[in-house]
């Protein structure tokens, strides 16, 4: 069975939250790994926007939304880093409550000041089939 999730996040809004120094928000929404990894990204707002868009898309694809069963802090996203900003790379992966999530397809687009995430997950097989590498910035 295939499920689709889509989300859009305004980068400036994420930047305002980060600039505000809201640690409670960061610790609630992002995992320790994601926060640690953000130090390697010069474009932090984009990085966090991508991860948030992914998490939102994922819970939408599961038909849940953010609930106590699917907390954003339970989803651990590993994005690859490239020299010139953020890229979608083959080793993009995630874990949900410790279980590996594999994607049939995952795409991020930068549309103006927004990050758009399109996610298609295969709920049964869970097999990684990344097919494209796209520069978004």
């Amino acid at each position, binding site marked *: 069975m295939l499920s689709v999730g889509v989300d859009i*996040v305004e980068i400036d*809004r994420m930047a305002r*939250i980060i600039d505000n120094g*809201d640690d*409670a928000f960061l610790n609630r929404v992002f995992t320790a790994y994601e926060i640690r990894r953000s130090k390697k990204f010069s474009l932090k707002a984009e990085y966090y926007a991508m991860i948030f868009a992914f998490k939102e898309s994922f819970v939408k694809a599961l038909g849940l939304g*953010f609930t*106590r069963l699917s907390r954003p802090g339970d989803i651990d996203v590993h994005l690859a880093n490239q020299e010139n900003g953020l890229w979608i790379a083959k080793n993009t992966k995630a874990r949900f409550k410790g279980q590996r999530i594999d994607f049939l397809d995952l795409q991020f687009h930068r549309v103006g000041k927004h990050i758009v995430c399109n996610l298609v997950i295969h709920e049964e097989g869970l097999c990684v089939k990344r097919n494209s590498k796209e520069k978004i910035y």
Partner: protein
Amino acid sequence: MNQKICDAVVQIADEVIKRESGTTLKKKKAVLDKNVSFMASLEVDSLLALEIISRIEKKFGIKLQEDDFVHFDTLENITDLIERKIAVASQKVLSGKGARSLKVEKAVKKTKSIKAVGSKKPGKLSKKIKAQR
């Protein structure tokens, strides 16, 4: 309904909304209606909702779940929920303090008894010192 908690929640939401849209909650009078869904009338998305929740958590020192605000959606219900969570959190703190104080009391008693024993029965070394004097 605890008015102080209610005011604090409205203030937090007001700050966030003002930053994002430039409008204050006073302009959105429907938001402050007790029977209307608070989060829905704020017209916030999940990002802002999570920010408001995390700010409330920080302000009151409590833990809220992501869907708490869905089930307790009116301002009155949210205030009651926070009040209950604060009560639970304070009970935990009190019970924690109680346990600690018992431990401290036991430790104090132990040291007192050691001192008392020491004063009544001097050790061999102190006896030798006294004999030398």
